[in-house]
């Protein structure tokens, strides 16, 4: 019996918010296709409720036996646009409701995959899906959507970017929270277990259990135990070792759950994902590294090192790594980020710079509802440019809040936290966005 290991694990769970953020069942729905939407929706419902019937119970058993909290149980499915080429957009709600009901029936927290991949152009299915997003995201509860509008290989589909700007604006006018379930990607990954962007990519197998780890609180405490005079190399080593341990837990819990469910174990997503709870914050990790406030000068450097060290520590601890793997910086979900946004140390421009060196993008950023759709599109285009040029995933999950003023707080509830409404630049970008067309793939993408 190794006393020090036992005490360390207990401390991580008890005092430092260590948890497994999500166990996500990736499920192919390709065999549910039918030219009758009602038949296809019924196939989808049947398949999900059959294949995922035990995921919640088994996850809870694993959680109880090993004493490691599993915060969310989720399902990701084949991008729905692949199944719906013949379904008019006004009938798309049939699919969305089947997915939403199936997820609720098996008791998962979220279901993701109401998605389209349009970086190089749009099929009829893609168009139907995007056109249905305002209705779908405001009339369902646990269904999450994503649209990939750019990739390093294909460039950026500016027509799609423009359409997503309008779509986000329309959703906000019906129900602002709807946009918390929609993410616009560049270089989306196919095995991401995290929402809102999870979908089960077309190169995936029939089903997989993927796992997303968490643990910013554990990393922060490990850094805090070092003296302020510790060199950045020592910090890096400490983060790597901590990430190794957290990932080990994820690898073990994931493979144990997969074994009990009888599904193959896919990947561990080595992400540091915050929650609104104090002490479970990426901002606080960066501040522990030596910044007075996140967002100030030095933030990008600290985040780059953190993100890289988490990957280096985690890669060796797990069999297969995938998903987004890195530090998440969702503003509304991170108490430290909100504090910094409130006193204007953190703004959209600095967040954008940070996304060049971490695993995601502008995430859970609230803005006043009067933001023009072309400005939303331009924000998406900027993020996509960072991702496409740097061979990485970037994303935008932005929430225009009708009637909201800069500095107001808008409560989203649960893990989504409290959004602080942040300012955007008033100078317009509409001529650029209205040009439409495609931004070509960067020269370094031609590697053959």
């Amino acid at each position: 019996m190794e006393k020090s290991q036992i005490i360390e694990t207990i401390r991580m769970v008890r005092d430092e918010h260590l948890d497994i953020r999500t166990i996500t069942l990736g499920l192919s729905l390709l065999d549910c296709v039918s030219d009758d939407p009602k038949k296809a929706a019924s196939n989808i419902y049947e398949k999900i409720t059959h294949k995922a019937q035990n995921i919640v119970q088994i996850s809870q058993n694993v959680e109880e036996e090993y004493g490691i909290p599993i915060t969310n149980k989720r399902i990701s499915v084949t991008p729905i646009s692949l199944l719906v080429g013949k379904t008019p957009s006004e009938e798309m709600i049939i699919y969305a409701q089947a997915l939403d009901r199936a997820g609720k029936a098996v008791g998962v927290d979220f279901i993701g995959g109401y998605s389209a991949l349009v970086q190089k152009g749009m099929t009829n299915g893609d168009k139907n899906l995007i056109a249905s997003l305002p209705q779908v995201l405001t009339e369902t509860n646990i269904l999450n959507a994503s649209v990939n509008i750019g990739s390093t290989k294909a460039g950026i589909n500016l027509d799609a970017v423009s359409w997503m700007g309008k779509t986000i604006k329309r959703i906000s006018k019906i129900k602002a929270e709807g946009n918390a379930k929609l993410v616009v990607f560049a270089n989306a990954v196919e095995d991401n277990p995290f929402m809102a962007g999870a979908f089960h990519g077309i190169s995936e197998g029939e089903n997989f259990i993927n796992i997303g780890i968490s643990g910013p609180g554990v990393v922060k405490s490990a850094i805090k135990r070092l003296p302020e005079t510790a060199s950045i190399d020592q910090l890096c080593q400490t983060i790597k070792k901590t990430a190794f341990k957290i990932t080990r837990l994820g690898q073990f819990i994931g493979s144990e759950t997969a074994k009990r469910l009888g599904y193959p174990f896919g990947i561990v997503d080595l992400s540091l994902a915050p929650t609104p709870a104090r002490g479970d914050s990426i901002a606080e990790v960066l501040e522990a590294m030596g910044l007075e406030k996140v967002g100030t000068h030095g933030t990008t450097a600290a985040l780059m090192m953190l993100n890289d060290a988490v990957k280096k520590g985690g890669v060796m601890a797990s069999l297969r790594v995938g998903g987004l793997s890195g530090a998440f910086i969702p503003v509304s979900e991170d108490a430290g980020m909100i504090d910094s946004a409130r006193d204007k140390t953190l703004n959209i421009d600095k967040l954008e710079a940070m996304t060049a060196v971490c695993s995601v993008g502008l995430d859970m950023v609230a803005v006043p509802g009067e933001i023009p759709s072309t400005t939303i599109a331009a924000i998406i285009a900027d993020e996509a440019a960072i991702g496409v040029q740097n061979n990485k995933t970037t994303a935008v999950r932005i929430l225009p809040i009708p009637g909201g003023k800069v500095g107001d707080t808008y409560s989203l509830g649960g893990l989504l936290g409290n959004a602080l409404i942040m300012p955007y630049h008033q100078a317009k970008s509409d001529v650029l966005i209205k040009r439409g067309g495609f931004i070509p793939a960067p020269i370094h993408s031609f590697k053959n």
Partner: protein
Amino acid sequence: MIKIVITVIGKDKPGIIYKISQELAKSKVNILDVSQTIMQEMFTMMMLADISHTSVEFLYLKQNLIAIGKDLGVQINVQREEIFNEMAKI
């Protein structure tokens, strides 16, 4: 052998080990090792036990032990042992 680790965190007082071992004996759980230490100024007792011959479900045993902890005013955790080994294994 299926091993579990029972940890007790809180203020030390007479009868903690007695009450836990009484419950374990009743459920045919064999104690393999006991140790105690101080973690962040809190008394911490760790017990390694084998549940392969137990007459009760893991969850039932866990709930009973947690209830004993509540009576004594201490926090009791019951976890399968593998989780502690996995974390440090390269």
